[in-house]
């Protein structure tokens, strides 16, 4: 059985969205409090070393989440960034670099689009992370691109992992969240495109970002 379309949840459930944002903020906060308390309670080298690493990680995640919230507010408030011309392959490669469980399907040459490149990279990273957080072991995210009706359609789907990705784990990887999905949707729309989720036929969802091709 399919879960409800994740994008319809993003659009309709403000209560759920706010709860998700609160969860995104409170979890690293609890980690900060928890490790600070543990250092006071058990002040040995091992605890200090682990706590130090986790506190830095929790701080980085808090900062990133606040940045995403501010960006979402700006985009929903109508702020736009100047579009530039770039090929989608470069943006996808930049967004997924370093991830052993994200692969790009061969579709050279990738089309050029006129859009907010930083935003598109963020979209690609967010959607891939969201799918990855749902992926069972042995599954990877595959990003492919096709030209459809004047648009470049970037598709993010789960697929069986090949030899290079089968056993990979991603320590400290970005986690999926409704905040990132909502931000991804708004950034696609700000670039004149659309983002949709559709069943992939195996009980999961795939995401398709349609972006206007560069004219001429």
């Amino acid at each position, binding site marked *: 059985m399919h879960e*409800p379309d994740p994008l319809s949840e993003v659009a309709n459930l403000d209560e759920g969205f706010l709860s998700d944002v609160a*969860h995104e903020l*409170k979890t690293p906060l609890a980690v*900060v409090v*928890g490790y600070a*308390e543990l250092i006071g309670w058990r002040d040995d080298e091992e*605890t200090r070393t682990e706590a130090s690493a986790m506190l830095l990680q*929790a701080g980085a995640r808090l900062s990133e989440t606040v940045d995403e919230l501010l960006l979402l507010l700006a985009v929903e408030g109508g702020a736009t960034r100047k579009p530039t011309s770039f090929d989608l392959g470069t943006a996808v490669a930049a967004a997924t670099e370093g991830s052993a469980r994200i692969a790009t399907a061969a579709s050279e040459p990738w089309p050029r689009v006129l859009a907010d490149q930083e935003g598109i990279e963020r979209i690609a990273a967010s959607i891939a992370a969201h799918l990855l957080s*749902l992926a069972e072991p042995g599954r990877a995210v595959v990003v492919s691109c096709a030209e459809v009706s004047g648009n470049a359609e970037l598709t993010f789907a789960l697929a069986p992992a090949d030899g290079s990705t089968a056993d990979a784990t991603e320590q400290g990887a970005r986690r999926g969240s409704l905040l990132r999905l909502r931000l991804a949707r708004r950034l696609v729309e700000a670039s004149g495109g659309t983002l949709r989720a559709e069943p992939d036929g195996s009980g999961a969802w795939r995401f398709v970002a349609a972006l206007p091709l560069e004219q001429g």
Partner: protein
Amino acid sequence: MEKARGSQSANGDAARPVSLLLVEDDAMVRGWVQLCLRGTEFRLAAVASSAAEALELAQRRKLDLYLIDYHLPDRVGTELVRDLRQAGSTAPALLMTANSERGFNETVRDAGAQGTVLKTGSREELLKAMRNLKEGDRPFDSRHPKRLPGRAALSPREREVLRLVALGRTNREISVALGVGDETVKTLLGRAFVKLGARRRAQAVAAAHERGLL
């Protein structure tokens, strides 16, 4: 799988370890829980980062207690508890969440779990809840506000109707599938809408998922 066992000595140290399955997708929280349990009567028998992984581990391990995060990547913690109970596991389950949420305790209880604890970062709160659970108490965190009147959990029949709605079935198809009349389907759906505060089918399905009722 067994009911919780083990006893605790006066200083809180282990007399016999309590075997625990931690289900948590966040590596930072997993690390914190592991450190909290060090030197206690609890032994981390296994760690899962998704509900699917937890179900698989629960089949293979002899466990005394589950510590489950509510927001898992593949489903919410209450759905996992339902699946564990259906699979025959009777070990008590403690649900963790970062937010205090209205009706959370009732939802968790309806799913077949025995307690809740807020993820505040307090080792003492976590261990106290786990120890209470181990002793057979029902430690539901009182910081979760009670469910509003009229927002009771779905009845099994209402849940079944919503499950079919989620599959895209029409009222007619649902009435055939359940062997009831069209009017009964409408009544069951109407009741579910009221309980979920929903006005449309998709909204009701989404709300039920969000609250772990399906």
